């Protein structure tokens, strides 16, 4: 197996210096997600702002423990979603999910995924896909919780 296709330099850069790491105030929802097979964990907070019809992801902060793939994925995700409307952030999640589940056959769109395109190689390593998705799942969960609260 070609290690370099998995461990792209962009991924290793994010792993060594993760963006937006640490837990911050304010936030409307905090979630804790675990990958039960390997024990990777993330505590993630989202702070949304704006009117209920057009919520903006103002901040995503997190404390994560895990491998290079899961740490780098969290870092890249925050770059992609912070400052974006929720629907655009969710669209990025959809694109990332499609890339991960594409068995290496999906051509990623750099406009949508930016540094996330470096994860294209991960899709060829089935055991690592869940590492790349952990932070995204936590973000989706936390954001959906806030949106539900706003509606209520």
């Amino acid at each position: 197996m070609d290690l370099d296709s998995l461990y792209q330099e962009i991924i290793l850069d994010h792993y060594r210096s993760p963006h937006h790491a640490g837990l911050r105030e304010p936030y409307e929802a905090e979630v804790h997600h675990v990958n039960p097979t390997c024990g990777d964990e993330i505590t993630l907070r989202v702070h949304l702002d704006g009117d209920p019809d057009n919520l903006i992801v103002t901040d995503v902060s997190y404390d994560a423990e895990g491998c290079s793939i899961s740490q780098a994925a969290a870092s890249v995700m925050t770059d992609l979603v912070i400052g974006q409307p929720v629907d655009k952030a969710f669209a990025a999640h959809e694109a990332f999910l499609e890339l991960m589940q594409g068995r290496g056959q999906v051509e990623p769109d750099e406009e949508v995924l930016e540094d996330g395109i470096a994860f294209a190689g991960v899709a060829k390593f089935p055991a690592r896909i869940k590492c790349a998705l952990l932070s995204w799942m936590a973000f989706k969960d936390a954001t959906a919780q806030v949106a539900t609260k706003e509606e209520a």
Partner: protein
Amino acid sequence: MSELTGLLPGLEVIRKDFPILERRLSGDLPLVYLDSANTSQKPQVVIDTMVDHLERHNANVARAMHQLGAESSAAFEEARDKVARFLNAPSRDEVIFAKNASEALNLVANTMAWAGPLEVKAGDRVVITEMEHHSNIVPWQLLTERKGAELRWFGLTDDGHLDLSNIDELITENTKVVALTWVSNMLGTVNPIAEIARRAHEVGAVVVVDASQAAPQLPVDVQAVDADFLAFTGHKVTGPTGIGVLWGRTELLDQLPPFLGGGEMITTVTMEKSTYAGIPHKFEAGTPPIVEAVGLGAAVDYLTEIGLENIHRHEQAVTGYLLDGLATIGGVSVLGPTDPAQRGGAVSFEIAGIHPHDVAQTLDAGGIAVRAGHHCAKPAHKRFGVQSSTRASSYLYTTPAEIDALIEGINYTKKYFKVT
């Protein structure tokens, strides 16, 4: 490195017994299999015995009134005899076939919930240890939660041994069960079963031993260690998956109610009530894993032929060599005892700055199979302040050259991740 003392004589011949060791992996790399604590590889004799059974003797056991049925029943019951000899069990009827060690342990924990002489009641105590595999923690949590009983555990010392300093406080008159592993799957520690069993028996507690990691590499004599119940799994002793063993003392097995209800475990059934078969059949409801049991019989015979004492010596030699090799690499810290005389053949370690997943992935790219994660021992990892670890585990077919390949692979991994 043939000068390493304690290696099995004829190691190259033994390796030829295991066809999978000839495998070439992606990139035409030879397989370096260091994940035997997870599951062991299978010798040709186990594979052939199972194929022969399926090709020539397949039939259901105990209920088929024909020649094949008789042959299949004989092979299945002969496997029970082989396992009984392997454990030095006083009676073959004390060997219960289950699907794995987890089911065997659950059988005990589950049936102790029901009314009877061995029932664990509110206020009773069950004692386990912090180094257990989840399969020897969760069943006891379920039991004590259901019954309002108390779950306590032995802690661990910094060097990975059981902390027995508070044994008198833990094992008291209220203690009904002491359940512990013989050999830790994460730390490698070999526990003093006989000593703890003696203390447990002084208060009348039942001793349940998880021998999943012991049975592959130590001579297991249930009478010598004075256990009451002992569980192990087939696939770690060069046998197939889908078969595990619970051994228990006759008088205790007789006192436990049935576990699963169904065919073969009854004497007679009416619509109102059933009466139950004696042991071992009382605990073997339904069609058992027949060919798996036959394969397990071949596996324990294979190990006995080589000799568990010899295998143990081999494991200690290889483990000592591995520990020496790891000690030469900066940033590597071993979890558990560092004296090979006090441990089994599974060595978990950390490399500063590299996550175990990334270590395992990089080693795998070089054809080296290890395990990364919490190894189903999350509390033991937490005790040592780590979330997960990399584990290399050897077996009777492991060579010093494979350990050399691992050490080289770890050095490469450090370079790859630019860790000094």
